[in-house]
């Protein structure tokens, strides 16, 4: 009531609320502003993670010491992992594009609990600061790897506590975001927005939110136990006191395997929006995609043990986990089939987001198929904990989530900023990035097959060739990344004004102005019988 007058005509970027300037952003409860806050903070953390990755690859350019000593290297891959997992890919798509777009896509004014939403972002920042404390102060940067495996995680002399606590706070932020989205999707859909008319991106956010809610607390309590172990010596995972380090791994992966689906599901959702839009065609098998989303979310919760095939589990457990891992592969395959079928007889408008989406499908297939090698018992025993695993999960997490993030970025950019980017440069950036990506991670498959273990600071001469190619790839990838970022940053400020619906999409966010007004809709939208997110004609 009292805000409507002030905002007439203004969009969410320009509107003037209770606070001015920066305060108007960091205290805003507007889901779009919060989404942008996440975008900037996550992009910063992503750039940091990329720099660390670059340093690691540089170190591996040649055997022996190249630029840093072993302790620094171990700390580098730990911090790279913690940043990329807990601060970038887990919150990534849901927190940025979920916040920016999801309420508009379902025809709502905001999320169900806007203040809680802001609190999530603040918790995110608090978590980041805590982890950074671990790096800068105390007895050295953590060097345990992002998995914090017991018992090394309470033997190491490095400053682990803030990092663990930071990860806990980040988890809490993720839980609250998931909670908020679930309630929003349940309660705030506009009239006519039935469950069977929900855009697929929203559906994947729904599945993701459930995993966030049910899996994150398990890792939370596990990290608390590690912290208590370090401070009080409760003995829960300490073999000297009767604890079982393998149990730590169970608890850790009960969260961290579903976390992979937290990362990849919204990515699949974003791709499921982009492919139909640029094919100008109804998505193929809408209900099958929803079913596969929920199947992935559910079955993905029960397969964590495939990270532990060499850890000393019982044979029965290994058998079970391997079997279920193969079953969880099927819904992912179904999605790929449906995406490709959507292109069939479409009218394909090849634009930057589409390039990203197609390359997503390719790298996701490589990642997924290599996952089959890791899901099978005999082959996993051989490649577990080698560079092969590193290649596999970078194909999924970086190739999957990362590519989908860039796809979504280029797709929704005109809506978010109300300006269009330079398409030629965006395409060049994509091409360079894609080539760099392939060159960076493909050799790791080969290195793993040769038997090079992961997390190696130094390696034997026979692994040199693959590592050189990989390092060169990292430079190409970073070049592509810089092109993309420069183009987007420049265009956000100086690009030509964007149309309301530049890609001729059918979802609701394209029915409002670019950038969207403060309360999203002038009038609450109503979906008729014939309307739907993919009803092209």
């Amino acid at each position, binding site marked *: 009531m009292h805000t409507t007058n002030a905002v007439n005509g203004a969009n969410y970027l320009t509107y003037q609320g209770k606070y001015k300037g920066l305060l108007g952003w960091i205290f805003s409860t507007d889901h779009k502003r919060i989404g942008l806050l996440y975008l900037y903070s996550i992009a910063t953390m992503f750039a940091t993670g990329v720099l660390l990755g670059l340093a690691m690859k540089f170190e591996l350019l040649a055997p022996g010491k190249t630029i840093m000593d072993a302790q620094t290297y171990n700390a580098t891959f730990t911090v790279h992992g913690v940043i990329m997992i807990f601060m970038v890919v887990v919150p990534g798509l849901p927190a940025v594009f979920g916040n920016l777009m999801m309420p508009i896509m379902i025809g709502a004014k905001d999320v*169900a*609990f806007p203040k*809680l939403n802001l609190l999530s972002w603040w918790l995110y920042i608090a978590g980041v600061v805590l982890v950074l404390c671990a790096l800068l102060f105390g007895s050295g940067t953590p060097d345990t790897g992002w998995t914090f495996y017991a018992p090394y995680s309470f033997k190491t002399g490095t400053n682990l506590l803030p990092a663990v606590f930071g990860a806990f706070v980040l988890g809490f932020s993720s839980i609250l975001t*998931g909670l908020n989205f679930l*309630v929003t999707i349940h309660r705030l859909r506009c009239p006519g927005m039935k469950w069977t008319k929900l855009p697929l991106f929203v559906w994947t956010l729904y599945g993701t939110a459930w995993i966030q*809610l049910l899996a994150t607390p*398990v890792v939370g309590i596990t990290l608390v136990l590690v912290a208590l172990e370090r401070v009080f010596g409760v*003995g829960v995972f300490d073999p000297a006191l009767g604890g079982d380090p393998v149990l730590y791994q169970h608890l850790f992966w*009960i969260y961290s395997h579903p976390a992979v689906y937290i990362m990849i599901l919204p990515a699949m959702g974003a791709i499921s929006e982009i492919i139909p839009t640029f094919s100008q065609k109804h998505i193929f098998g809408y209900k099958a995609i929803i079913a596969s989303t929920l199947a992935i979310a559910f079955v993905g919760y029960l397969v964590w043990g495939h990270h532990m095939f060499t850890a000393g589990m019982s044979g029965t457990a290994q058998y079970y986990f391997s079997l279920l891992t193969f079953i969880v592969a099927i819904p992912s395959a179904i999605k790929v089939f449906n995406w490709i079928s959507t292109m069939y007889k479409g009218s394909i408008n090849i634009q930057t987001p589409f390039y990203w989406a197609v390359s997503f499908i390719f790298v996701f297939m490589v990642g997924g198929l290599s996952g089959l090698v890791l899901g099978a018992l005999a082959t996993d025993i051989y490649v577990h904990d080698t560079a092969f695993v590193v290649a596999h999960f970078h194909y999924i997490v970086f190739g999957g989530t990362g590519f989908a993030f860039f796809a979504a970025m280029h797709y929704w950019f005109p809506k978010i900023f109300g300006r269009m980017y330079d398409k030629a440069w965006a395409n060049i950036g994509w091409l360079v990035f894609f080539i760099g990506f392939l060159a960076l991670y493909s050799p790791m498959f080969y290195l793993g097959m040769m038997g090079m273990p992961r997390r190696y600071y130094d390696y034997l001469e026979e692994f040199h060739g693959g590592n050189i190619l990989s390092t060169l790839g990292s430079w190409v990838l970073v070049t592509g990344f810089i092109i993309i970022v420069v183009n987007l940053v420049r265009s956000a400020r100086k690009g030509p004004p964007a149309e309301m619906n530049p890609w001729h999409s059918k979802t609701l966010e394209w029915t409002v102005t670019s950038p969207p007004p403060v309360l999203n809709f002038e009038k609450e939208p109503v979906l008729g019988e014939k309307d739907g997110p993919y009803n092209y004609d």
Partner: protein
Amino acid sequence: MAEHQHAHIEHPDMYDPESSKIGMWLFIFTELLLFGGLFIVYSVYRYLNADAFHLAAEELNTFIGAFNTVILLVSSMTIAMSTTALQKGHKKVAIALLVITFLIGIGFLVNKYIEWGVKFSHGIWPGSEQMLNEMSQGEILFFGLYFVMTGLHALHIIVGLIIMGFAMRGVANGKVNAKRPSLLDNCGLYWHLVDLIWIFLFPLFYLIH
């Protein structure tokens, strides 16, 4: 925390009791899984060290445990009644019932304090010399888990009491009323969750020996 979220200044027409109820339930789910992780640890170690757990459990005082169970159940009833009172418009009754619940919560904590104090005076606390020297590995695990799980539960009691404080204020100044009972309802749900967890902690630590 979801219960504070129904008053939206920027988007004023969004009070929806159903939303805050689902929000609270979802939050309860995460709490359940948080304790769930600990229950997994407990069940695995109980299975691996059945005899030691048996022995260690005899050290705990069943009477105090049972007493705490009883008062916590009573408090669950009083807070549930308080929501009924509010719906019937009996504001004073509602507040009185809340106060009773609050006092019982404090009582529970006092009991816990005494119980832990006794353990400490016997030299039993995580990482204590006595535990490391005289106890078997299974017993160390039992007491480690005992302190972590009852400690985390006590922490939840404290959080519950704080929320109850807000609910009391809300009922007193009329912001929480028969038409907008969400804060009290959610406070009740949270308190029942605390009770629910205790229902499992009690037999696992005090009874099974």
